[in-house]
């Protein structure tokens, strides 16, 4: 229905102003644009489609699938070259598996001020695979720490915290401080719990685990060694840094609401927005939810993920100590991307549509539209604070955007795992992780089992090709 409406609007515009030229002229072209079910992302694409249809006289058909089924749907369609989709909206972790079926971004889109406006972490890292730009980021995303000003700024709480822990109450800078605060605010009898993280198998749990692990394993002196040894492709996940991360991640269960083992990332958000927990770790969604539909409106504060003064060095086999806290904010998930499958019959029009969606004007509107699911990824997005007034108070907007910008700019930013066969790797991880969390095995046993499974997969897929892919994904030159 809506599509019909949209096309009639475009049609009416066409009829009304015959002088209006189609630029470029895509009359008769219908683009099938597919992504997850709305409103998030899909509504942003539909909104961009209106402008594009007016400009080019083409038609856009937004096709939605459940998030959990997007990967098989896209992969089967592209591998069989059914030509079903002209533009797909997907997540960076799938780029290695999809890249062979995707066309590259036209060179003219890879230059000019619009290109330079995209934050380099996205432009140079997440959008490229094997040296080619295969996708276009349309949404920036990373894990952040969401806090509540009504608790942090409360004078009584501050005094009580200082008395108990010997330092002032403020946004936690290290994971130790994070757990102090989680413990301090954990008051089940009052209906307030310390924190909320996702622990459910299939509920994006491993990204939360990675966010802890980045602080202890993303050693600045050995870039790209967080998941695998970039020389040998040996799994690093059972080293002492990861063990410490898992023990801490598991310890957090004590400060989560009951039943947290079955919480996915989707459960974590309303817990924070509804004021049930004092803080949570989440993508950018929690903040927006909290200040629009939540009961903590006006109190949303966002911070970069905590860091650490100790990072495991897998080369020396020792902990490296640092004088300053090193932040290794983890770009979990990495935001939605658009790409044009190679079997699309209208690649030019498709890339033109992609350019429309990610243009500063259209995307600048999308990031402040409720429920669009689009978060900032351009320099220009971070600068226009006043655009955010519909969502946030001034203080909220400053901390929300500041935390995102600071995460991207952090010198030791940690990128997500991107590797061919992503689901094979994460499946072993999820199973063993949930066993460790449920207490069926010890953390060390779980990590050893994961490492063993990962090494077996790497051998099965070909160690050399996987190594080359891994090095490319972390931005290291080929061996």
């Amino acid at each position, binding site marked *: 229905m809506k599509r019909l409406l949209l096309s009639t609007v475009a049609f009416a515009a066409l009829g009304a102003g015959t002088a209006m030229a189609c630029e470029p002229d895509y009359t008769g072209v219908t683009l099938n644009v597919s992504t997850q079910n709305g409103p998030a992302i899909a509504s942003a694409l539909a909104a961009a489609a209106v402008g594009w249809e007016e400009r080019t006289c083409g038609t856009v058909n937004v096709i939605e699938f459940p998030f959990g089924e997007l990967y098989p749907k896209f992969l089967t369609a592209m591998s069989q070259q059914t030509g079903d989709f002209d533009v797909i909206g997907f997540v960076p972790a799938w780029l290695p598996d999809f890249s062979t079926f995707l066309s590259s971004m036209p060179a003219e889109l890879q230059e000019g001020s619009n290109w330079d406006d995209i934050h380099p972490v996205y432009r140079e890292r997440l959008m490229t695979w094997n040296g080619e730009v295969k996708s276009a980021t349309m949404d920036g995303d990373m894990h952040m720490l969401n806090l509540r000003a009504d608790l942090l700024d409360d004078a009584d709480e501050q005094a009580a915290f200082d008395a108990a822990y010997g330092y002032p109450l403020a946004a936690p800078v290290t994971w130790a401080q994070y757990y102090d605060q989680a413990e301090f605010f954990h008051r089940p009898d009052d209906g307030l719990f310390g924190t909320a993280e996702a622990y459910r198998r*299939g509920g994006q749990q491993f990204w939360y685990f990675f966010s802890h692990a980045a602080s202890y394993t993303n050693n600045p002196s050995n870039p790209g060694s967080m998941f695998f040894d970039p020389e040998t492709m040996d799994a690093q996940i059972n080293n002492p840094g990861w063990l410490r991360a898992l023990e801490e991640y598991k310890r957090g269960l004590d400060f989560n609401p009951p039943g947290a083992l079955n919480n996915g990332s989707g459960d974590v958000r309303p817990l924070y927005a509804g004021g049930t927990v004092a803080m949570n770790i989440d993508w950018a969604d929690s903040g927006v939810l909290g200040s629009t539909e939540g009961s903590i409106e006006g109190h949303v504060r966002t911070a970069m993920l905590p860091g650490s003064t100790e990072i495991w060095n897998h080369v020396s086999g020792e902990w490296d100590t640092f004088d300053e806290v090193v932040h290794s904010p983890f770009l979990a998930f990495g935001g939605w991307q658009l790409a044009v499958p190679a079997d699309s019959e209208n690649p030019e029009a498709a890339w033109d549509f992609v350019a429309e969606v990610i243009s500063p004007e259209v995307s600048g509107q999308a990031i402040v539209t409720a429920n669009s699911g689009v978060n900032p990824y351009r320099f220009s997005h971070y600068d226009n604070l006043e655009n955010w007034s519909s969502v946030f108070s001034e203080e909220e907007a400053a901390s929300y955007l500041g935390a995102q910008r600071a995460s991207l700019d952090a010198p030791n930013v940690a990128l997500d795992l991107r590797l061919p066969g992503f689901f094979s790797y994460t499946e072993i991880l999820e199973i063993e992780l949930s066993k460790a969390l449920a207490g*069926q095995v010890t953390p060390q046993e779980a990590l050893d089992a994961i490492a063993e499974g990962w090494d077996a997969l790497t051998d099965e897929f070909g160690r050399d090709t996987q190594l080359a892919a891994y090095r490319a994904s972390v931005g290291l030159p080929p061996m």
Partner: protein
Amino acid sequence: MHGDAVRHDRVKYAFIWPAFIIVLVITIFPLIYALTVSFQSVRLVPPLPPRFVGFDNYVDILSSQRFWGSTWTTATIVFASVAFQYALGFLLALALHHNVRGSSLYRVVFLLPMFIAPVCVALIARMVFHPYLGPVNDAMVGLGFGNLPFLTEPALAIMVLISIETWQWTPFVTLLMLAGLQSMPSEVFEAARVDDIGPWRRFWDLTFPMLLPLSVAVIFIRLIEGFKVIDTVFVLTGGGPGTATETLTLFAYNEGFKKFNLGMTSALSFVFLIVVIVFGTIYLAAARRLMKRYA
């Protein structure tokens, strides 16, 4: 007379061929494909050239603990829930058949669960069994049991899965048994009533034996459909913790649609098929003996 019989015999093909051809055309290619692929190592991601591996996939499956664990989980859920479904469904059908007060209302409400997509049922169940936002734990706390970890404790989670399956599919049994009760010839029962035979004996001597073939069919369909349980598990527990609540089809789904390890999934599907056929044959043989006893 002889020619007539042959002609009539011929007509039987006209009756059965349309169904036969449609089923054959739609199912034969998937079978051929799965069979050939199950002896190869085929992966869509990362794309590796297919290679013949003989029985390796089958050996891997049969020697993996995960397979036996998920078989056990599936069998527990299926047998327990089908037993409940049959007993409850038959009882409800009897009550409805004898026009219990308000039966026209029940008839519609009782059927509804069957018409809700399993993924929806699972989402609803997630809401109802939510650790502290859901009504069940609200009631549990009210009754003094405290918050029960319905979805994170494997034994409890399996009980929840069994009750969901029972909730959704008891209507299936009710509907068919009711139809069966209604198509039974009423003369027999009138005769029994005249002879003053009590309801208990009437049921065991007349109703139950007459509906035995239908019961066998109904249970059989529920068994083979039940073995494919996936959505509820996927949404409620994701198979966790670990693989404690993983069912066979969820296992196959992860291999096939997440990892696109097609060789392994195909082999798994055939092993699954064999498991179901084995259970099915044992069940049918037992059912036939039971039917003979009544015949």
